[in-house]
């Protein structure tokens, strides 16, 4: 597949690190001089911009959290006057108050360029028809992918989110070849297509670019099989820009990070110390070229790991593993740390289970109760009772050995759980803490 920016994506290590250091120092200088929050943070920590002499010195810099951004609502984190900001987005606000991001003209150009790289890595070219099912609006997903796809020269259909039957109609009529959206919505589309009895031959879809929520390999395989496409994963978050931070090539062996624009670290979420190479931890992102709103060491809460191994595609940049979960998704149930991603992995590797589930945490008296609702395949749902019981016991035993507690399990009929049109609601915490 073509490499969009050969020079930047295949740059040697020494050259890349020099560029990163130059840009890190530049960003630090601007953040320190123009953003009151950082000026104060530096003073509190007794750090000066000139203390950053190497990339490793980034560890002496303050972290930035979602909370910090909320406190800066709406414009306090901007490092340029508002008249130089030409676009404003805000985080999807799945949890709590929203955060605001501003882009300068240069930022928007950079954004399109980086998304163009991600899109090209997935194999999308000017010959493709790209259907975008991300919401347009304050959320960065729609616009981010939109301008990147246009930059590549593809024909972009900005359908936006929702109205699945119409999406499918457009997909057939407009001969869509590339689908952009969340993985859970892609699965939903697949389901509705099966329900509507859409002939696979009438759909030209060949590749999908999915992001916006953590997902598993099993989910990917499911999408690939049911839609008959190559499903690639891409990553970004509105706070640091939006989509375009990293994306998979056709080899699907981790997401190539656009390191000339983002410095990534993986740390232990508790101690903030760097984890050993290749180990899982929380991803922290420092913007290297953002003008409107530079962020230093932004805590993404996303769990991943990094590898510097060469990819066969020829790109030389660091890759991050598909994000498997979030540190703030972590549930503490009866004192045990439970990651929904672990539960998902168990469900998805079990035969006879559909990729739709919901985790409910409640408090019964003084005791936390973990309940998992999961859809089973039509075949099993209509089979003998004993098979259901067998399946239930099997999952429970797996759960006990992997996560350490035995949840209540409810096997439900296919298509009974609510489907999200954007990000899926997988976890419902009913405890009032």
């Amino acid at each position, binding site marked *: 597949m073509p490499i969009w920016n050969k020079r930047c994506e295949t740059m040697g290590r020494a050259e890349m690190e020099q560029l990163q250091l130059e840009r890190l*120092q530049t960003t630090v*200088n*601007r953040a320190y001089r123009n953003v009151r929050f950082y000026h104060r943070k530096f003073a509190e920590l007794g750090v000066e911009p*000139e203390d950053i002499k190497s990339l490793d010195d980034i560890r002496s810099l303050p972290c930035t959290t979602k909370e910090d951004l909320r406190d800066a609502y709406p414009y306090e984190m901007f490092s340029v006057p508002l008249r130089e900001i030409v676009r404003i987005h805000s985080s999807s606000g799945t949890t709590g108050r929203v955060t605001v991001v501003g882009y300068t003209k240069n930022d928007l150009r950079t954004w399109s360029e980086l998304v163009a790289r991600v899109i090209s890595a997935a194999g999308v070219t000017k010959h493709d028809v790209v259907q975008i099912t991300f919401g347009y609006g304050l959320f960065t997903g729609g616009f981010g992918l939109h301008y990147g796809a246009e930059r590549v020269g593809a024909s972009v259909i900005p359908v936006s989110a929702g109205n699945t039957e119409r999406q499918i109609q457009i997909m057939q009529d407009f001969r869509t070849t590339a689908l952009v959206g969340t993985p859970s919505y892609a699965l939903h589309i697949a389901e509705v297509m099966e329900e509507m009895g859409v002939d696979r031959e009438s759909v030209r879809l060949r590749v999908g670019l999915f992001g916006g929520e953590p997902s598993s390999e099993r989910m990917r395989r499911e999408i690939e099989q049911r839609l008959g496409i190559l499903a690639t994963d891409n990553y970004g978050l509105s706070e640091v820009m939006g989509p375009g931070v990293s994306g998979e090539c056709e080899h699907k062996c981790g997401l190539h990070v656009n390191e000339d624009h983002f410095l990534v670290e993986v740390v232990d979420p508790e101690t903030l110390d760097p984890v050993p190479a290749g180990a899982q931890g929380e991803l922290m992102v420092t913007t290297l070229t953002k*003008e409107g709103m530079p962020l230093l060491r932004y805590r993404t809460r996303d769990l991943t790991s990094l590898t510097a191994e060469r990819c066969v595609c020829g790109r030389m940049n660091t890759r991050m593993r598909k994000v498997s979960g979030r540190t703030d998704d972590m549930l503490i149930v009866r004192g045990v740390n439970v990651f929904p991603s672990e539960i998902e992995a168990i469900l998805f590797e079990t035969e006879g289970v559909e990729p739709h589930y919901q985790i409910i945490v409640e408090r019964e008296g003084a005791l936390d109760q973990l309940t998992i609702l999961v859809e089973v395949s039509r075949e099993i749902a209509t089979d003998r009772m004993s098979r259901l019981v067998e399946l239930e016991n099997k999952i429970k035993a797996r759960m006990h050995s992997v996560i350490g507690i035995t949840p209540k399990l409810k096997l439900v009929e296919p298509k009974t759980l609510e489907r999200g049109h954007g990000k899926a609601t997988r976890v419902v915490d009913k405890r009032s803490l």
Partner: protein
Amino acid sequence: MLRLTSVVACYGGITALRGVSLHVDDGEIVTLIGANGAGKTTLLDTVSGLITPRSGTIHFLGGMINGVAPEKLVKAGMSHVPQGRQLFPDMTVYENLVLGAYQQSRRSKRLHLQGDLERVYATFPVLRERTTQMAGTLSGGEQQMLAIGRALMSRPRLLLLDEPSMGLAPLLVKEIFKVITSLHKQGTTVLLVEQNAKAALAIAQRGYVLETGGIVLEGTAHELMRNPAVQRAYLGKGYRSLIES
């Protein structure tokens, strides 16, 4: 070709560079723009060995050159055209040019001097006409050409230019920049320090903006030219809106 990593340097007891990193690739024109006192001249002086950095490293053609004497750097292929030309006013144009080949061996001079002179005269025909004239009697533009010509006598791979447009009439600035472009086309890599950001960004591929000893912006010349902060501070655009706010 040239790589600075976190260079700290002092000038007259004041820390003029506070951890500057930048690089110039083979075949590029890179410009460093900034206001008076930002540290631009200190940076060039540090690169060419006139000032030894307090900390940080400077690499030239793959080797570290911290503390390497200026004449050795000239031999290695670096030439510095200092601010204010720094000619010898009571020597002739010819003598000033020959001084540019000062570090070459007698043998090399015998072999190359004439050719080098011819190249400089070809680049700056006016210097040929003034060969026997005292440098101090030349016009400002001619002096700048002589200063560049002298630097070219050592056949540099990297040319450091410190404010070549200073004190020159717009027409002469244009001519000097034309010469820089043609030298670049002939294969010379250029690090150009300028206050005339507009002219510098017009011929450079990339640029850095230096402010009180630290780099605050970097990017392609194109990006910098479109950057509102650069336009306001260095290109003289939009000053009205600054006053309004």
